[in-house]
């Protein structure tokens, strides 16, 4: 309860917690997956585990874009940085993600020109300012971030910029949810749906979860009360034997999504036939690439990339944690070989990564039940 006291409304939190306890059937064990890494982070940071009854288990989903990127793609991005005259730009989260030959930060220390940017527009700016260099943007992210990359590319096209490219690693959340639902032995009773992703995609894309799999979905915001309310929505549906998509985050998420963003994405991207996700393997139509009319700005067209698959170190259990099969502290390397100072897996790097969030907020040196 440590963090919960800091909220403006501890009373509301307590009331929501009571409602959860009332709605959940005591004889039943519930597994509810929060799909989005932002939710995972919020759950640990606010200590929400502590206000839930024991029979409600929150399962962390694959919604952290840094975490699901397989090592081979990190290597491909870093190969771009080795080209003479190239500047590789990426978000801060990527800098400490290990590739086979080291992290971007380590490669930078060895002389590669790798720079952190806060926005894809910063990368574009760098290209305008350095006409003799080639600036590549290492794009990652779900539908929250993909529209920003799309608008940046449209702007590059408008400017006729020749020394700019995007190494596109944008992924889409819905096929990953389907993969999890299809994976054998995976029992999830319902989903807390991603908030900001849904502000772009809307709620419709989750309808199949309710229709085809009979599982409730509640799209949620990121405040503690939002997450608790979404859990109540899921529990109420389960209790009533219903399955539908509900929108707890109506103040930000329009049911139909953001048409401007969706149009920009449609102009720039197309679906890849398949894409490899760390821990989940190859998932068809689960990622975006630039379409042919943007080939000129597509790093995968402009550069020769190794494209080699790399398996994770044996002892690292990132895959199991990403699928929600293991909790972070159940990984053999957790807080030992793998820690925020020396991350072995990406889940320990990004603040949305389950391992980093768990380490930072829930880990007190001893094994904790979660």
């Amino acid at each position: 309860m440590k963090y919960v006291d800091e909220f403006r409304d501890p009373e509301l939190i307590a009331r929501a917690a009571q409602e959860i306890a009332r709605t959940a059937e005591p004889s039943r064990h519930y597994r509810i997956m929060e799909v989005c890494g932002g939710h995972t982070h919020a759950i640990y940071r606010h200590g929400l585990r502590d206000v839930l009854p024991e029979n409600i288990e929150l399962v962390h989903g694959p919604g952290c874009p840094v975490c699901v990127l397989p090592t081979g793609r990190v290597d491909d991005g870093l190969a771009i940085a080795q080209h003479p005259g190239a500047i590789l730009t990426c978000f801060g989260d990527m800098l400490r993600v290990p590739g086979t030959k080291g992290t971007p930060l380590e490669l930078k220390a060895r002389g590669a020109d790798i720079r952190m940017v806060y926005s894809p527009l910063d990368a574009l700016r760098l290209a305008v300012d350095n006409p003799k260099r080639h600036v590549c943007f290492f794009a990652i992210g779900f539908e929250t971030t993909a529209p920003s990359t799309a608008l940046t590319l449209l702007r590059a096209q408008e400017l006729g910029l020749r020394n700019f490219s995007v190494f596109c690693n944008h992924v889409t959340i819905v096929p990953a949810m389907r993969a999890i639902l299809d994976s054998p032995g995976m029992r999830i009773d319902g989903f807390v749906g991603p908030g900001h992703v849904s502000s772009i995609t809307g709620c419709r894309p989750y309808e199949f979860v309710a229709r085809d799999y009979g599982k409730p979905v509640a799209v949620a915001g990121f405040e503690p009360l939002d997450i608790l309310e979404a859990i109540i929505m899921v529990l109420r549906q389960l209790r009533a034997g219903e399955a539908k998509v509900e929108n707890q985050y109506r103040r930000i998420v329009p049911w139909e999504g953001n048409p401007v963003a969706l149009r920009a994405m449609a102009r720039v991207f197309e679906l890849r036939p398949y894409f490899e996700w760390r821990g989940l393997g190859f998932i068809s139509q689960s990622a975006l690439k630039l379409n042919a009319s943007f080939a000129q700005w597509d790093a995968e067209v402009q550069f020769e990339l190794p494209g080699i698959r790399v398996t994770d170190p044996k002892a690292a259990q990132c895959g199991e944690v990403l699928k929600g099969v293991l909790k972070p502290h159940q990984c053999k390397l957790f807080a030992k070989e793998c820690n925020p100072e020396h991350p072995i897996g990406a889940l320990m790097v990004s603040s949305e990564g389950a391992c980093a969030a768990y380490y930072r907020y829930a880990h007190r040196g001893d094994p904790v039940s979660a």
Partner: protein
Amino acid sequence: MCLAIPGQVVNIVPEQPLLAKVDVGGVRRNVNVGLLEDAAVQPGDWVLIHVGFALSKIGEEEARDQLRMLRAMGEDELAMEEVRGYRFSEEGDPG
């Protein structure tokens, strides 16, 4: 990177209708408003900012709550750093 930060629109950048100057806890930066449907943001509006773009408009109360929360959780510095970091928003902007 998945941080979404609330900010208040100060003004639309002259001759760059897709850029708005936004105030985030006292730090002022340009952000791109090209993703907002009726791109008509007005000075005084609150927006949710993600990687240099306004993701959506939000209510004032919600925005203030979120800022308070960022502060309570000690994450406001991170948010400020991100907003301060938007290089594209300097003079002679290509964005």
